């Protein structure tokens, strides 16, 4: 039952930006349904509308026309308070630049969303340590972000994104600022969390390493969905891309 459930539904979404006198069409009508528990990658060159679509799904931006439903709730209908609640409970964000809060320790970063959600200090600390343990950083909980490597910071960010057991994790170029090996570790970790916890992972990425773990890949070009590939079709395509790139 839970698997059949649509966690995100994008219906005919278009988005235009006005830049000075020019009107830029970032998205020209996108339809997409994402099932709960899926690991989905959104691929596309920069300027393709990939980030715009991604931000819509995350409730960070509203469409010019069309609708975005998260858990069958039209996000355009939500007021500021409800959007904050959605960001707090339903969605976990992972950023390319990690975006840990510099003045807080790893543990405090992880517990902040729980504090917003009304958890008590003890509850939050206990769960925060557990989540840090899950990403292998329990013993570094008292360190500030500057004292952690890029990969470690991203792992703290992953722990933070899980703080309120969200239904969706949105990862914006999660490996973009990491070296090859660390990037792979992060991808493996995301995949593991997605399959163990049944979290929907949606990532916008250029990173072909992501393809191997994705259930589906959505290719965006010129503000439209170019193609959607299922996991079974992927292996062949990856080879093809590799050959083309080389």
């Amino acid at each position: 039952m839970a698997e059949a459930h649509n966690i995100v539904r994008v219906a005919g979404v278009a988005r235009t930006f006005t830049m000075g006198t020019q009107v830029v069409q970032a998205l020209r009508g996108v339809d997409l349904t994402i099932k709960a528990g899926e690991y989905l990658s959104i691929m596309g060159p920069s300027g393709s509308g990939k980030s715009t679509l991604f931000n819509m799904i995350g409730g960070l931006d509203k469409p010019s026309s069309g609708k975005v439903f998260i858990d069958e709730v039209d996000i355009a209908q939500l007021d500021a308070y409800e959007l904050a609640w959605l960001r707090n409970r339903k969605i976990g964000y992972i950023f390319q630049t990690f975006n840990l809060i510099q003045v807080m320790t790893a543990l405090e970063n992880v517990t902040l969303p729980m504090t917003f959600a009304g958890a008590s200090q003890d509850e939050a600390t206990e769960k925060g340590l557990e989540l840090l343990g899950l990403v292998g950083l329990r013993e570094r909980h008292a360190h500030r972000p500057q004292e952690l490597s890029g990969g470690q910071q991203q792992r703290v960010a992953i722990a933070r994104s899980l703080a309120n057991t969200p239904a969706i994790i949105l990862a914006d170029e999660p490996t973009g600022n990491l070296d090859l090996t660390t990037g792979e570790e992060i991808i493996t970790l995301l995949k593991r969390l997605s399959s163990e916890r049944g979290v929907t992972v949606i990532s916008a990425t250029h990173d072909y390493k992501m393809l191997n773990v994705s259930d589906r890949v959505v290719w965006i070009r010129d503000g439209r969905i170019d193609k959607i590939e299922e996991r079974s079709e992927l292996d062949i395509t990856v080879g093809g891309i590799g050959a083309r790139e080389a």
Partner: protein
Amino acid sequence: MSQAEGASSNQTGKSARIARQVVLPFGKSLEISIKSIKVRFFRSMITVASLVLAVAFLSFILTGANVAAGLLRSGEPQLRLALVEAGYDLPSLPPPGVAPQDEAGKLSASPKERWIVILSLLVCTVGIVNAQLMAVTERFREIGTMKCLGALDRFILRLFLLEAGMQGLVGAFIGAILGVVVGLLVGLVRFGLAAAANLSPLDVLATLGISVAVGAGLSLLGVVYPAAVAARMRPIEAMRAQE
């Protein structure tokens, strides 16, 4: 409690509006603001420095007036003469029918001094606005991230107001003490021990109180606009802001 109940009942009906509970307890806000000040201690010091100077100047001028009032109230003719010599606008003999108390009450800073004080406080407020706007720009990513984690506008507003309030209180207090001490020293140099002997402690307390209140008030006033800018920021900026 009703909110929590609302949450559970709403989750069953999917199309129902999303339940509302996003909080940031006051104690936690205070903790975060103190941490921010501590980490950016040097920056905070610079923001506070201008406030310290302006408030010190205010309390220095007020203390000068306190000293003069004390001397006048003593009713001794040679102290009165000393005040006249020091440039206070007084007749050299007490006017008949006016009690020294009343006369002392009217004895305040000269209009010129008053204008300089007001100007320095204004300049200081503009300085605070500038420093806080820079702080907001510097912290764009942090603010955006907090909003992505579910922070409401008013959490951000509160954090900035708390920080400014604390900086304001500390800065104003230091400035007020500094002004009183220097004002007293100058009084001692000009009028000798009589300046301290006739000084009313109540006046000094009032001076301290006024100075701290003005300083803290200005600090808060200076942060209102920057904090509103920060609070209104859209969470999407957290994604956009690169190194």
